[in-house]
Each structure stands twice: as structure tokens, then as C-alpha cells.
């Protein structure tokens, strides 16, 4: 444990102001001392060391090009050139300075400093890895737009999980909800010929998974983590079986869904970098931003949200105030399923035009990590999902650029980011207090 009590240097005169007339609300509190922690310093030190060994020493002495716009764009911006080696040294210096600052203070640095360290490291990594490629040039627009696309199912998945966990039900079954949503969307859209029917089917399919989760977790009070894991395995097996026996042999009939329309907002989409990221999206992409906003508003600004948070924190207190705890939990678990279903639809109605076995590939678990990393807050979940989406997208872009770094290492990238994020490198996050605990009325 790197945390130790700092020896109080001097004792204040022991009886600190007798307070015979102190009002209750203002009665003196305990003295506080700083608790020494070297965890941030060690974390930053490791980053600085990696940066030194890799970005500064082991770099190519080349210019790295970042493209803000492509030749066909309406608005052209000049490209940015960065010299790889000096940039590596700058990043190393910044990280080392922050590590020393954290070590001297022996406590966590302010938030902006940690964000700066994160951005510096990501930038250093980006410059270094592009520098190792055959053609050291990368389009920022493609990098960001791809990140948002890959983040879309994660955002829906983590929002679905958020709705469950905020009301006190742990949802490990996000993976199952995404997968079953994708499957239902593919089949329904193919059979009906309408992607909108597919979207609806994705929601319903995912809600079906939620029904099972709610039934076992709330009604029968089975351990919620176990139910979630079992659901994931069950849905994976079920969709895999149906894929092999039904979808694959007659793909024309069941597995060639039409795509959801892509909407390009005129003018706004022409803004360099930001335009294509925000205003040139599939319907589900726009839906994603709307859902984040709606969930945030509902959670913090409505009666439903207040009750939901209360039920997730202290169900008994909510019960004594006449809030129907388990009914609310059931409703929210179903609602969470519906939201996750939209993310599932992204796979078969936007991303790829067919369902394949286990096509979600663990995204549900990454969504769960995004939920924790984002501290159970809709906006936090969005940002965390975007970070994970960025890591995945970087991997696929880099594989085109032909870098000497083995692609397996790049494929590990999103998961390494996840582990670092969830391990509490960015501060401890406190989840809903009653999450995972079934509520039993005496």
C-alpha cells in the first residue's frame, strides 16, 4: 500500500475551542491531514519512462503528417507536420514534470493535470506510431469519425447498463443485449424489408434479454453477476446456433438486412474535422447523441431520475417514502434493454449488412468498463466510450499504414486502455451503493 498516514507535525492545543453554544449544523469537525499517496506519481512515472524509452529514444527521425482535410473537401486546411523525435522528448518532459510534481505533493494532482498527462501520452503515442509507418501520414477526420462510429454501440450499451445500475441492478448482460439486438435487427429487417422494423426488433429482442435478467435478478434474487454471465453465454450459443442452421443456409431470406439511411446535414457537414464527425451520420449516430442528452436530463432533472437514483442508493429509504422499489427496478432494466438494443442494431443495420456469429466480440464488456470509467454518468459514459472507440479505430487505421509494430499488439490497445481506466488510474469511482443487492421487503 503506498498510502501512509502523514505524521501530524504539530498538535494544536488539544481542546480545540470548547463549543458549548455551537450550533449543531456548524459544530467543529475532525481535524484533517493530508494522506500521502504515491500512486499518481508512480503511474505518471511509468508513463514518462515509456515515453522516454519509446517515443523519445526509439523513434524515427521523420516528420509526421496529420491531415485535417482531404483533396475533395469544400474547405481545405493546411496539413500539420510534427517532427517525431523532438515531440517525443517534449512529451517525456511534460510527463516527467508531472510525475515529479505528484511525487513532491504526495497526493493526487488536480484533474486538469491528469487530463493533460493523458492527452500528452496519447499524442506522443500517436506521433510515434505513425512515425514508424511506411507512409507517415494520417487523416484526423478519418481517425475521429471512425472512432465515433466504433463507439456508437458502446455508448448505447453503457447507457443501457447505466439505467440498470443506477436503479440497483448490475447488468453484465450488455453483451447479450447487443448481440441479440443485432440478431433480431438482421432477421426482422430482412424479412420485412424495412430497416425501421429491424430497429424496432432490435429493441424488442434486447428487452427480451432484460426480461430474463429482471425475472431472475429481481423476482428470484439470483446473484446478478451470475445471471448476466449466463445470459451472455446463452445468447451467444443461441444466436450462433440459429446463424449456422437458419441464417447461413438461406442468407437471402433471413440475413441480408437493408441499411438504415445515412443523413448528411448540408453545410454543417462541410466544417473540417468536426463536420464529418458530428453531421454526417447514420440515424443511429444522431440517436446516440439524443439518447445521452435525454438520459442525462431524465436522471438528474426529473422525478423518475430522483427515484431511480434513490432506489440504487438506498432502496429501503425509498420504500419508506412510498417509492415502489422493485417495480421501478423492473421498469428500468427493461428500459436499459431497449437502449442497449439500439446499439445492437448498429451492427447489422449500419456497420455490416449481415449478422455473423458473435459479431459483438466483447463490446458489451467494454461498454461495462465505459460505464465504470464514466462514473455512472451518461456524459462520462459517452466520453469513455469515445476513448475506447478511438483506441479500436487507431488499431484498424494503423494496420493500413503498415507499421512494424505487430498488429496483435495494436489489437490489444483497446483492452489495455480499458484495464488502465478501470484499475482506477483516473481516480476512484463510486458506484450506486445498492447496486447488485436485491431488495427484500421484510
Amino acid at each position, binding site marked *: 500500500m503506498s498510502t501512509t498516514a502523514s505524521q*501530524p507535525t504539530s498538535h494544536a492545543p488539544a*481542546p480545540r475551542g470548547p463549543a458549548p453554544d455551537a450550533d*449543531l449544523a456548524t459544530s467543529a469537525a475532525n481535524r484533517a491531514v493530508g494522506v500521502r499517496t504515491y500512486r499518481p506519481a508512480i503511474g505518471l512515472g511509468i508513463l514518462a519512462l515509456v515515453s522516454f524509452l519509446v517515443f523519445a529514444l526509439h523513434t524515427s527521425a521523420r516528420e509526421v503528417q496529420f491531415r485535417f482535410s482531404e483533396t475533395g473537401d469544400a474547405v481545405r486546411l493546411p496539413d500539420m507536420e510534427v517532427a517525431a523525435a523532438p515531440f517525443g522528448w517534449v512529451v517525456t518532459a511534460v510527463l516527467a514534470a508531472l510525475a515529479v510534481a505528484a511525487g513532491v505533493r504526495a497526493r493526487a494532482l488536480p484533474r486538469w493535470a491528469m487530463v493533460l498527462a493523458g492527452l500528452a501520452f496519447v499524442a506522443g503515442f500517436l506521433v510515434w506510431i505513425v512515425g514508424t509507418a511506411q507512409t507517415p501520414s494520417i487523416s484526423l477526420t478519418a481517425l475521429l469519425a471512425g472512432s465515433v462510429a466504433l463507439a456508437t454501440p458502446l455508448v448505447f450499451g453503457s447507457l443501457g447498463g447505466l439505467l440498470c445500475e443506477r436503479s440497483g441492478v448490475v447488468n453484465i448482460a450488455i453483451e447479450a443485449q447487443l448481440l441479440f439486438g443485432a440478431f433480431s435487427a438482421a432477421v426482422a429487417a430482412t424479412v420485412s424489408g424495412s430497416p425501421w422494423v429491424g430497429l424496432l426488433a432490435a429493441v424488442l429482442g434486447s428487452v427480451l434479454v432484460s426480461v430474463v435478467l429482471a425475472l431472475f435478478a429481481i423476482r428470484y434474487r439470483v446473484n446478478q453477476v451470475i445471471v448476466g454471465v449466463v445470459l451472455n453465454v446463452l445468447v451467444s450459443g443461441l444466436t450462433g446456433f440459429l446463424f449456422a442452421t437458419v441464417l447461413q443456409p438461406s442468407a437471402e431470406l433471413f440475413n441480408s438486412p437493408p441499411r438504415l439511411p445515412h443523413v448528411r446535414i448540408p453545410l454543417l457537414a462541410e466544417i473540417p474535422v468536426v463536420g464529418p464527425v458530428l453531421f454526417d451520420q447514420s440515424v443511429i449516430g444522431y440517436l446516440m447523441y439524443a439518447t445521452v442528452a435525454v438520459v442525462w436530463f431524465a436522471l438528474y432533472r426529473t422525478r423518475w431520475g430522483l427515484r431511480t437514483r*434513490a432506489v440504487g442508493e438506498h432502496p429501503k429509504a425509498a420504500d*419508506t417514502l412510498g417509492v415502489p422499489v422493485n417495480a421501478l427496478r423492473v421498469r428500468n432494466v427493461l428500459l436499459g434493454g431497449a437502449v442497449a438494443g439500439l446499439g445492437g442494431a448498429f451492427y447489422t443495420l449500419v456497420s455490416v449488412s449481415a449478422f455473423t456469429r458473435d459479431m459483438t466480440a466483447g463490446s458489451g464488456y467494454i461498454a461495462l468498463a465505459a460505464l465504470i470509467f464514466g462514473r455512472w454518468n451518461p456524459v462520462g459514459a459517452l466520453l469513455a466510450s469515445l476513448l475506447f472507440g478511438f483506441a479500436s479505430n487507431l488499431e484498424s487505421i494503423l494496420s493500413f499504414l503498415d507499421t512494424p509494430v505487430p498488429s496483435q499488439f495494436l489489437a490489444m490497445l483497446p483492452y489495455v486502455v480499458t484495464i488502465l481506466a478501470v484499475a482506477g488510474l483516473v481516480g476512484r469511482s463510486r458506484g450506486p451503493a445498492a447496486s447488485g443487492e436485491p431488495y427484500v421487503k421484510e
Partner: protein
Amino acid sequence: MQLRLRDVTKKFGDFTANDRVDLTVEPHQIHCLLGENGAGKSTLMNVLYGLYEPTSGTVEIDGEPVAFSGPGDAMAAGIGMVHQHFMLIPVFTVAENVALGHESTRGASLDLATTRARIREISQRYGFAVDPDAVVEDLPVGVQQRVEIIKALVRDAEVLILDEPTAVLTPRETDELLAIMRQLRDGGTSIVFISHKLREVRAVSDVITVIRRGRVVGRVGPETSTDELAALMVGRDVSLTVDKTPALATGAALEVRDLTVVGDNGVVLLDGVDFDVAPGEILAVAGVQGNGQTELTRALVGLEERVTGSVRLDGHELTGLRTRDVLARGVGFVPEDRSTDGLVGSFSVAENLVLDRCHERSFAAGPSLRLGAIAQHAGSEVAEYDIRAGSVDSPVATLSGGNQQKVVIARELGRPLKLFVASQPTRGVDVGSIEFIHERIVAERDKGTAVLIVSTELDEVYALADRIAVFFHGRLMGIVGPDTPREALGRMMAGEPAESVLPAAPWDHAGDDDAAAPGTLSGGTDRGTTNPLPPTAAPPTPSEPTSPTGRTAPADRHEGNPTA
């Protein structure tokens, strides 16, 4: 409105918690429900509040029977309840807590402004000083309780049930609460006051209903004497004091120096505490819960993480040792909460009796347990401590609170000790078991063991203590004699150091010229903190400031120095 419980019976399986209880709460009345822990008071109120459904019998309002399917119905009918364990959401603000379940809305969005205004209005009317935007977990318990009362008042409660409201309060906060209760009554609210504390009950009640083992056993007025009330409550004459001879204590078995415990958020939970406990002496630690007592007991047995300072038992340093090694040095420990820290609920009585000794040769042969020896041991302990259990193989969770606590006490006293540390040794225990446990603790003292008791019940402190230590916000306010008046202890619990509250000191100028005044007791406290009292249980007298062992007091800066 008039509230009546008619012939209410509530059974849990075979256990009858309430047996044909008949109770009428008139308007403008403080109606006290007096009974021991486990007598069925809380069950009855949960029936009244719609949390439990009665097995038979009815609840009537103004003569009309009503059926509550949940607390929502009870609240709609004008019944509010302040639970013993507050029903507040720690991470919410006061306004959010008050609004919950009773939200006003503007369109789709929540309208907390209305709630805030209501809180301010009520707060002003009763002088509560509650900030609607404060986060509840940051508030002192006394204020949290007011938030609970506001919650009920906002819902226009005409009957307010207060379940053991004073358990978490200092004597001063208790007085304030009693004043609030009178004010509410005069304003037209009827109050049901649940308590087992006779003094408060007599001070505030208009009518007292005594409950024993689920039945109403008496309905008396507040003029009834304390002894009579106690006899009614327990069902026989009880001695509220423990027979014990004065401590024959000299020297120090336990020496605590500058002990500091820091919480993981940097809050100093125990702040540079110094004291000694002599062999054969009971030091009772009084104080409202959450002022460092729990951390003190945990630090003594090595359960706290960030500890500085020194704890020596017979000259051997204990800090830094693993808990098992501390216990092996002859320390017995009764944790505050038996169900979470003292016992393994699903284990049998026999297993619980050897939890900390199952590696000893007498109970284990290599890696395997000697089940025969364990069973035999259990048999003799159950007999010795009068533990009433179905069998020694029954899960300990099936025992009553008193018997569970006896299991813990039996285990901890079952081996030779030099120091016995007990936190809330009789919380939630029936009176019969309390007497028994107290006798055992005194017997252990008489064997020459140093005893440290932490209790929030002043009666228990007075019953057991050879000396009394008071903690406030992690600091030791002083160590005083066993017959220091209740009022003085109360002031110490609210943060006044011993030397400014002791009777001989003038109460209005706190210790500024005490040093020059030979009539004050600051010398006595000084001596008391570093040395046990002379073998008379008399209160500290100012005449003898020298210590038998000649040690000077390093603790001066904490308790002794009245000019500090």
C-alpha cells in the same frame, strides 16, 4: 386526529412479536412506547406505518379502520416516521431527500425550488437551521435527524413516530430534540416516542405505554418513578447498578501514547490520544458514537491501517503487530457490531466459540480440527455463560441478541487475558443478559485484567467505570472519576475539556485561571490520565497530584493543561 391500534397481533413464523396490542394516540399528546430492545416496539410501529401487515387486528384513524398496503398509504393518512436508522440517501442533498416520493414537478422536470422553500419555512418555524442544499452525508447526525423530521412535516404528518431518536445524540442534542417534540405537540402534532431510556421518557411523555415481550403491560403517567418503570419494562425488580468493589489498581498494564488514526480521506479520526489503564481497572469510554471510540478499539487490536503513536501492553509494543499476534499477547476484543464483526452468523455456536482459537493445539491437530474437543468446549461454555441455544450446532444467527453477545463474550473471556477491550458490550441485549455480561466484565477486572469499555449508554458507563474517558471528534476531552455528574459528561461529549466542566471549576470561564485555583480539579484529571486512581473509587480530589509511580505526564498537552 386520533390513531388507534386495536388488538394488533404480528407473528413472524412461530414468533409472536406483538400480542393483541391495544393503543390509542390522542391528538396533542406525546405518547411514549417504553420497552426493552426486542420487546416489539419497532415491529408495532412498522405495522402502524404500513411496512408490516398485522397478522390480526386493525389500525383505526378517528374510529375508522384503515388498511395500509405500504408506507405511502400511511403517509397519505398523515402518519410520519423517523426511523432509528435514518432513511436518508447519503449522496443526496437535503432538498432531494425531502422531495423524494413527494416530488413537485414543473412539466417534465423536477421542481426542487418549491421543496427548498418548504424546508426553509419549516426550518424557520422550529429553529432547525438546515440548509436545503447541503449533502446529507456531510451533516452531523443531529441535523440528519432534523431532516427526517422535516421529511415528515413536509408531508403534513399529524402523527409523528420517533423510533429510538436519542440513541445517536449527545445529551445536549437530546435536550434540544425533547424541546422540539414539545413544540411540535403544542403545534398540534401527536407524537409517538419509542424509547427504552427512562429519564427521557419521564421528561417528555404525557402518557407512557409499557410493552414487554410484545404485550402491553402497563399504561402509566410520567410521574411514575424510574424504578417502577424499569420493573414494569423488565417484569421484575432490577438493580440498575452493578455490585462491584472499588478497583484495586496500581501501575499501568496498557499505555497508549499519542495514538493517532487517520481515515483514508485524510480525516484524523483519533487525534493524539494518551491514557493508561491499570491492571484490574475498568476505563469506560463515553461519548456519542462516531467520535473516535470505534477507531480506538480497532487500533488497539491492529485493525486500523493508518496508525501512528504507541500502544504498549505490559511494556510490549502492540502497534505494527498483526491482529492475531495482538490477540496472542492476551488481548480480548468484543467488536461493536456482533453480527458483522463478532460472529459468523451461519456458523454454529460451537464454531463461533473457537473462531480465534481454532489453530491452537487443543482444538486442532495439524490441519484438521478436533471436532470432539470443540464440541466439548462449546458444551462447557454454553453452561457457564447460560447461553440459550437449541444446541451447540445451531447457527449462531438463530440466537437472540443477548445470547449472541454472550457467545462473543464467552469466546473472548475464555482464555487468559491481560487486556479486555469491549465496544458496546450490551447493545441490543435484554436486561437479564446485560446484568450477566456486566457481572462477567467486573469479574474479569477482579482477576487483574485491564478493561477498556466503549459505550454510548451513560447508564452502562456509570455502572462499570472505575474511570471515565470522554471523546469528542477524535480527541480525548479528559478522564474523570466514576461519579462525575451526567451533566458534566454531557458537556464534555459536546467538546468541552474536562477541566472546564468539572464541578469545582467555575462553569462560565472555561479554565482560564484554573491553574492558579487550587480548588479546581485539573490536577485530578492530570493524574487520572496517567495513573489510575488510588484504590478508592472516590472522585478525583485535587489534594494528591503526585503519581505513585513518579511518572510525569507526557499527556499534558492534551488533557492536563488548562491554559491550552
